[in-house]
């Protein structure tokens, strides 16, 4: 489902921090990638 697929009434449900939900989802996935990279660095440094 795309953001543009919203039914009537759902246009009020915009994310409060970004222009689109897609940006919010990328924030969560980017945070996951950042955490995994950080954990990998920690593992390498302290192994």
């Amino acid at each position, binding site marked *: 489902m795309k953001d543009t697929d919203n039914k009537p009434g759902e246009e009020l*449900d915009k*994310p409060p921090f970004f222009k689109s*939900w897609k940006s919010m989802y990328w924030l969560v*996935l980017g945070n996951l990638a950042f955490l*995994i990279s950080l954990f990998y660095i920690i*593992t390498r440094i302290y192994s």
Partner: protein
Amino acid sequence: MRLLDWIVLLGTLGFIVSYGVWKTRGSKDIEGYLKGDNSMKWWTIGLSIMATQASAITFLSTPGQAYEDGMRFVQFYFGLPIAMVIISITVIPIFYRLKVYTAYEFLESRFDLKTRSLAALLFLIQRGLAAGITIYAPAIILSTILGWNLTATNMLIGILVIIYTVSGGTKAVSVTQKQQMAVMMGGMLVAGFMVVRYLPESVSFGDAVAVAGKMGKMNVVDFSFDWNDRYNFWSGMTGGLFLALSYFGTDQSQVARYLGGKSVAESRLGLLFNGLLKIPMQFIILFIGVMVFVFYQFNQPPLFFNESAKDKVYATEFAPEMEALEEQHTVLFNQKQEAVHGLVAALRTDDETAIAAAQAEVQGITDASKVVRNDAKALIAKATPDAETKDTDYVFISFVMKYLPAGLVGLLLAVIFSAAMSSTASELNALASTTVVDIYKRSVKKDKDNFHYLRASRVFTAAWGTLAIIFATYASLLDNLIQAVNIIGSIFYGTILGIFLVAFYVKYIKGHAVFIAALMAEAVVLYCHFYTDIAFLWFNVIGCVAVLVFGAIIQFVMGEKGENLAD
């Protein structure tokens, strides 16, 4: 426990229960009681989702797991943020559009009544049993460590939860979970600060992490692929994703949390909040366990962390053998302490040869200590055959009771009680809403007024709570009960997930086909359980895949005739 601990523990729990009852008093209709009037903001939803998932066992077992196995368990959660994004995109808009009270209600509009009722019944059996274990699991550990009566501990947890859940419904569950999360995270951070503070003055925080690393505990990420390795990057990204999708997308105890949101946006943000913070939260809890491990490199740990189980051996003919093992344990600890100080000194020199030599010395003594510990476990099993020989659940609570000052022990016990209460409250609330909405209101008493269903919701919440307490009270009489409950859960969970995956993603398969497929899948899973040696965790995958495959085949054979009226 000292007076101050009792004041902190009872004061914290009393405040949370009273606040929950007061803040949500006067629910006048079923909409308010089961969906919190759709008034919840995203941070309440996010905290409520996290509190529901974090049971008491999370705070008792996870630090112990890090003590034994290091940080790698965090990889189990790598699939969770992806699941949050998928559910936000596909599941939430559909639930909101249909204005459902429960996840299973959606199945009637997608398929038919019989499929909805089947999924609801499977959930009630599975979650009804799990609610008893959510109370029993921390109660058995607390009663062992503190010498409390097991039945009284079960009843204390259960009755406190029933009071505010019956009174305020979904809103009371979510409102109290905000305070419970604050207690849980605040308590754990204080415990983490204290354990670092209790390290010897000559050992800095950096030294502690470096020692943990050299002893194999900072193994956060492992990219190597191994089918037999339960926790690595790949199992987290696949198995973790699969589990998170089924738990957050189809389990009413979680679905109810985000259905109470003010809007699609609030619910989505609540789930994404969980996607952002769940992994750091688990990392912190595991890291506290690693710091407890480092603490015990400089302070002698018990030979066996469940000391009450060990003490029972002294009342048997095996007492001299246990005494001899305790002596060996002390000798090895003294040698190890010296070796660990040597490792710290070597790490400061940056001399790789010295570090490797010190590391090898520490490892040698650690291996010898493990042998002694395993001998002690074997002796406990021999002397008291009913005793549980896994003691990792007792590592953290044993540290708390022995080393934390008055007041903080009460706070950490409040953490464990809060966690037990928050997950039990969500379970009772979900069990009651599914019983009322999917069974009672839909198929038993269809034409009653709003007040009748509100009263029925309260009665069913209290009834499920009472059943959970009774189940928790008699749980200890049955052997391997927790495993039995896990097996029962796995027998049903795969089928439920299969039905929902078809509902969301396979439009081709209709009501009759998915219902027959679900029954056949359940038969396959039961066959695997009774006639094969397949490990029960695989039942989740087998049940889910069976629904998808059988559903597609049956729909193909039935053709147009298989289409349900709703379409």
